[in-house]
C-alpha cells in the first residue's frame, strides 16, 4: 500500500471516527449525569440532519443548522422531562429498555414526518466534486468542516466542564448526585441540561456530516451502536477517551476495508466491542475502580 493510499484511508477513517466520537461524547454526558445509557443518542444525530434540511429550504444555511440544533436540543429536553424525569429510582435495566423504545419511536416519527427518502444539506463550501489536494490526498472541504466542528465541540465542552459554574455543577451532580442535591444544586434541571447538551452536539454533528453521508430516517440505530462501542472503548464517562477511541475505531474500520471484504466492516467494529467487553470492560482509558462503583 502506497503512502498516498494509506493517507486516503486515514482521512476517511478520521472523518467517520470523529462522528462516532461525537455520538460517544453525547452518551457520556448523559451517562455521567444520570447513569443511563441513552440509546436514542443516534436519533439526535439523525434529527439534526433532517431538521436542518427542512429548514434550509427557507432559511440561509447557518441559520438552518442553528435552528436544527435548537430544535433537537428541545426534543432532548422533552424526552428527558416526559420520560425520564419523573421515574422513581428506575433500575438500569428499565432505563436501557425505555431508551431503546424511545429511539424506535423517534425513528418511526421521523419516517412519518419525512418519508423514506434520503436527503442532505448542500455542501458548506464547494460542491459534490470539489476536493482539496493536501499532501497527495484529495479531501472534500466538507471533511474539514466535520473535523473542525468536532474539534470545536470538544473544545467547547472542555471549557464548559472545566471553567464554568454550570459545568462544575453538572460534574458535581455526576460524581455524587445525592450530595449535590443536599448542597442545594438543582439536580433535576441539571439532568435535563445533560440531555439538552448531548442532543445539541449530536444534532450539530448530524447537520455537518449530512452532505457527505446523506441523512434518512433510519441512520440513527447504526450510529448509536458505533457511538456506543466507542464510548465503551474509551471508558464509559470518559470523553477524552471517547475522542481518541472514536478516531481510532474510524481508522481501524477504514483500514479493514483494504484487507477484508467490505461486507464485514461492521463485524470488525463489533468484534472489537466484544473483545473489550470480555477483556477490559472499563475500556482502554477508563479506570477499573470507577467502573466498579457505577451501576454499569
Amino acid at each position, binding site marked *: 500500500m502506497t503512502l498516498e493510499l494509506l493517507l486516503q484511508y486515514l482521512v476517511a477513517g478520521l472523518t467517520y471516527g470523529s462522528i462516532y466520537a461525537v455520538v460517544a461524547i453525547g452518551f457520556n454526558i448523559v451517562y455521567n449525569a444520570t447513569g443511563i445509557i441513552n440509546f436514542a443518542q443516534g436519533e439526535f444525530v439523525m434529527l439534526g440532519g433532517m431538521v436542518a434540511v427542512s429548514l434550509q429550504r427557507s432559511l440561509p444555511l447557518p441559520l438552518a443548522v442553528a435552528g436544527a440544533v435548537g430544535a433537537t436540543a428541545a426534543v432532548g429536553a422533552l424526552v428527558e422531562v416526559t*420520560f425520564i424525569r419523573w421515574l422513581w429510582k428506575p*433500575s438500569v435495566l428499565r432505563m436501557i*429498555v425505555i431508551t*431503546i*423504545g424511545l429511539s424506535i419511536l423517534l425513528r418511526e416519527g421521523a419516517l412519518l414526518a419525512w418519508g423514506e427518502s434520503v436527503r442532505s444539506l448542500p455542501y458548506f463550501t464547494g460542491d459534490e466534486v470539489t476536493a482539496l489536494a493536501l499532501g497527495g490526498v484529495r479531501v472534500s472541504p466538507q471533511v474539514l468542516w466535520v473535523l473542525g466542528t468536532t474539534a470545536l465541540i470538544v473544545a467547547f465542552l472542555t471549557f464548559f466542564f472545566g471553567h464554568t459554574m454550570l459545568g462544575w455543577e453538572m460534574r458535581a451532580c455526576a460524581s455524587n448526585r445525592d450530595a449535590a442535591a443536599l448542597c*442545594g444544586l*438543582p439536580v433535576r434541571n441539571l439532568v435535563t441540561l445533560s440531555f439538552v447538551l448531548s442532543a445539541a452536539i449530536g444534532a450539530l454533528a448530524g447537520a455537518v456530516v449530512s452532505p457527505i453521508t446523506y441523512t434518512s430516517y433510519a441512520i440513527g440505530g447504526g450510529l448509536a451502536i458505533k457511538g456506543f462501542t466507542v464510548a465503551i472503548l474509551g471508558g464509559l464517562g470518559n470523553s477524552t477517551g471517547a475522542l481518541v477511541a472514536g478516531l481510532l475505531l474510524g481508522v481501524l474500520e477504514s483500514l479493514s476495508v483494504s484487507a477484508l*471484504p467490505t461486507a464485514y466492516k461492521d463485524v470488525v467494529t463489533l468484534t472489537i466491542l466484544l473483545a473489550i467487553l470480555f477483556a477490559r470492560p472499563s475500556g482502554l482509558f477508563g479506570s477499573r475502580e470507577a467502573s466498579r462503583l457505577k451501576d454499569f
Partner: protein
Amino acid sequence: MRGSRHLQVGLFAAAVVAAQLVAQASGKGFFLTQLTMTAYYTLVVLGLSLLMGYAGQISLGQAGFFAIGGYTSAALTTLDLSGQRGQAWVAALARARLLLARPDLYGGEVLSVQPWAAFGLAVLLGAVVAVSLGVPVLRLKGHYLAMATLAFGTIVSSVVVGTQRLGAADGISGVPPFELGAGIRIGGGGAHRLQSYYLAWGLVALAMLLLLNLIHSRAGRALGAIHGAEDAARAMGVDTARLKLQTFVLAAVMATVAGSLLTHYNGGIGPSEASVMKSVRYVAIVAVGGMGSLWGTLSASAVLNFLSLRGYFGSYDDAVFGGILVLVMLFAPAGILQADLRGILRQLAPRRGAPGGEG
C-alpha cells in the same frame, strides 16, 4: 405444588384445542397458520422472560440465536453434496445415515443433510456461542450482557447478510420439511396445517412444563433470590454467575430450537429474522407480559405476534412495539398484568417536592 402446575398446563392445552376448534367452526381455519408461527416465536420469549425476570439480565441477542438455529438448519438441509458422492467423507456421512437424498426444484436429485442432524448441530452451535458469550460477561457486575448481546446480534445480522453461502440478502429458501417419522412433519403445506399447529403448541406446552418445574425447583428459588437482591444471594452462597449463565444459555438454546423448527415450517429464512429490531420486539413482548411471569409472557406473545403476523399494525409494526416498550416500562415495569394503577397515579400526581429531590 406440582398439581397446580400440571393443572395450569392442562388448562393451557385445553385452551389450545378450544382455539383450534373455534377457528375451524367459525370458518377461520386459516388463523392456524399465523397461530403456528406465533407458537415458535413464543418459545423464544419464554426463555427470555426467565432471563429478564429471574436473572435480571437483558438479552438483545435472542434474534441472533434464532438465526443461528434457522440458518444452520437451512444451510445444511439445502446443501447439495451429490457432486461429491465419491469423496470419502461424504460416503462416511451417508453411512452414518446423516444424509438425505431428495428431489429438488428442477426435478433432479440432491444430497443434503438430514434435518434432524442439522437441528442437532444448530442447537450445539447455539449453546456453544451462548456459553462463549456468557462466561466472560456474566461474571461482571451490571448490564454488560445487554451490550454484549447487542453486539452479538448485530454481528450475526451482518454475517448472514454479507455471506453468499447463507443467501446474503435473499436468505435461504427451499428448505425441506422436518420429518419426525410416522408421517408427522414440521413443514408448511396447507394439508398439514392442523398437524403443524398441534406440534408447535405441543412444544410450547412442553416448554412451559419444563420451565415451571425449573422455577419451583431449588435452582429456580436461587434464581428468584438473585432477582431480589443479588449481593445478598451471593452472600448466602448462591453461585450467581453460574446460575445467570445457565439461564442465559437456556434462553439462547430455546431461541435456537425455535429458529430451526420455524425455518422448516416456513420453508426458508431471511436476514430479517436476525435483525436487532426482532430482538427488541422479543424484549417488548416480555415487558408487556411481565418479566418472569411465564403465563403472562405467553399471552402477550400469542396476542402480539398473531396480530403482527396478520398485518394488523400495518406499516406501523415497529412503532407499535417501540411504543409498547416505552409505555410498559414507564407505567408497568412488572408487566401489564401486574400493573399497580394506584401506584402509578400516585407517581404522576404532583409531589410535595423535597428540595432537589430525586428526579
